[in-house]
């Protein structure tokens, strides 16, 4: 093979990855619009279109009914946008945590962030005790604060023995069990009603989504994401060779690991404090992305984000329509839909990538 041919082969490979990500973004946008039109309110396509455009172009003369306006802008869209932002953020967070620990089984679950958030939420629900914020916000603020505390605790514990991938995972698992035990303890003493609220929270659901929640979660995601993207090559070095190789390539592996871990935990905390524990999407989206386009973090992070958003949105749409008007919590549906798809990809995987 001549040099020019080999170079062209590689640039085609890169182009295919970019095209794939853009196509994913396109389908996400299309599916987002599609999901606005479905629901139990029985609105027609034109009702929804009118409601959408009446607000997007306020000075045009598009008229919308009050009912359509409320259903689209207060009920459906917050939920849909939260699914997109949440799915994207959780997937990125999972990809980062798997990369810095070089461990495909790791997710914000395994490093204790999710169970700490659950514990924070349980304190608020059962004891009515909040660290910051008024009565109606304490579940969220507690979840966020405890998730962040867990991230720093994991780092602190790992630091004592050197911040390697293994120590992070072990410290994280220890914390996960600690917080799960504490949550169980609270549940043991909780009233019937409180217990139900805790369990409900831990299912993970998008029912409580509001525009304020979305703005908060998005700000965290879009503040952290550029930094994580900037570390793409460092993450590649750590993920492909381990710490010694990364160091010999000029990468300060422990520092990159800590910074990325904390940023990923912040993104996760910013989402699950509003949605409850949605676990599967952060574990599986990065794997699907790797099977499809490979492990180069420059492309893996955006691709995971798009796939995570799609997965969560599809799951939530199915969850709220399959036995409508009952809504199945998205945390449950995500696994029910994601597992068969993931297993299919694993079983049919070829030696080369899919694209």
């Amino acid at each position, binding site marked *: 093979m001549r040099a020019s041919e080999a170079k062209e082969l590689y640039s085609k490979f890169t182009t295919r990855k970019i095209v794939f990500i853009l196509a994913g973004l396109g389908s996400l946008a299309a599916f987002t619009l599609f999901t606005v039109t479905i629901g139990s309110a029985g609105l027609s396509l034109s009702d929804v279109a009118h409601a959408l455009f009446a607000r997007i172009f306020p000075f045009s003369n598009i008229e919308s009914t009050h009912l359509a306006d409320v259903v689209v802008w207060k009920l459906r869209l917050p939920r849909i946008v939260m699914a997109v932002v949440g799915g994207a953020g959780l997937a990125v967070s999972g990809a980062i945590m798997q990369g810095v620990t070089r461990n495909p089984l790791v997710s914000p679950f395994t490093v204790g962030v999710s169970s700490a958030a659950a514990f924070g939420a349980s304190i608020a629900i059962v004891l009515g005790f909040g660290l910051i914020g008024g009565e109606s916000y304490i579940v969220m603020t507690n979840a966020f604060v405890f998730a962040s505390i867990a991230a720093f605790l994991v780092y602190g514990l790992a630091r004592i023995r050197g911040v390697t991938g293994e120590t992070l995972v072990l410290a994280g698992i220890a914390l996960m069990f600690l917080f799960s035990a504490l949550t169980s303890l609270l549940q043991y003493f909780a009233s019937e009603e409180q217990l139900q609220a805790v369990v409900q929270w831990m299912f993970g659901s998008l029912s409580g989504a509001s525009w304020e929640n979305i703005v908060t979660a998005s700000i965290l995601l879009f503040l952290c994401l550029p930094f994580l993207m900037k570390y793409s*090559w460092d993450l*590649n070095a750590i993920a492909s060779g381990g710490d010694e190789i990364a160091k010999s*390539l*000029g*990468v300060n592996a422990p520092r990159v690991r800590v910074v990325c871990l904390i940023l990923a935990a912040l993104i996760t905390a910013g989402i699950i404090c509003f949605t409850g524990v949605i676990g599967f999407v952060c574990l599986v989206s990065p794997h699907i992305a790797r099977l499809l386009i*490979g*492990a180069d973090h420059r492309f893996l992070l955006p691709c995971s984000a798009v796939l995570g958003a799609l997965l969560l949105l599809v799951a939530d749409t199915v969850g709220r329509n399959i036995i409508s008007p009952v809504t199945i919590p998205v945390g449950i549906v995500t696994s029910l839909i994601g597992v068969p798809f993931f297993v299919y990809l694993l079983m049919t995987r070829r030696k080369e990538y899919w694209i």
Partner: protein
Amino acid sequence: MRLEIRGVHFNYGSTPALEDVSVEVGEGEVVSLVGPNGSGKTTLLKCINRILSPQRGTILLEKRDVSKVSLKELARLAGYVPQSAARSFPTTVFDTVLLGRKPYLGWAVSARDKDVALNLLRSMGMEDMILRDFNELSGGEKQKVLLARALAQEPAVLLLDEPTSNLDLRHQLEVMDLICSLAKGNGVSAIMAIHDLNLASRYSDRVILLKKGLVYAAGEPGSVLVPENIREVYCIDTIINEDSGKPYIIPLAPCHTSPPAEAVQQG
């Protein structure tokens, strides 16, 4: 001198691994570190690469103290080839070699970075494999890719940790030939830890024989790899065949004159 190691001491906790080790490597020189398991070969390589920091002594790469340069600069001076690659997430051969450009890269990959990586892969006859998954390669192919990654750093010195230990005979010779031709052709110096005394003898300009963290003997292969030294360091009896011009070592049996426990320290 490309590489000057002066009076380096290193302890793992209270266990000394290197004691007062001094080694010099010139431009285009191939130097082998030999010695039993636990004699300090790998430790010395890791000290040069700052994966470990020696307690005493200095290491100069291109006249610069490695303990004082940034990691990025160090990565431009020394390329490290590990014994074998840990399995990782799927990565193409080309992307693996491109990682060697990390010390020069911003975020985007320049045309020059791609040229460097591609030329290295072509010189190893691997241009047809650029999009293969690194994990799916054979041991010999992997070793060549790792060598290409280290060379993509455009280093002054290559550090190799038993580059032939997982390879069949043909790949052993191929990899060693490659290292020597790079040294002679491009002036890249190489210092390698190696177990196979015959490969060391055949391909090195100089051999450094380590015993329990001390330099026991150093010099041309013919002067270092003699039965007395090997007996003293490895505690085995050998005969040397010099028909090919370089000493060829034929091990006979472990010798029982000195207690074996002394030679076989923990690895």
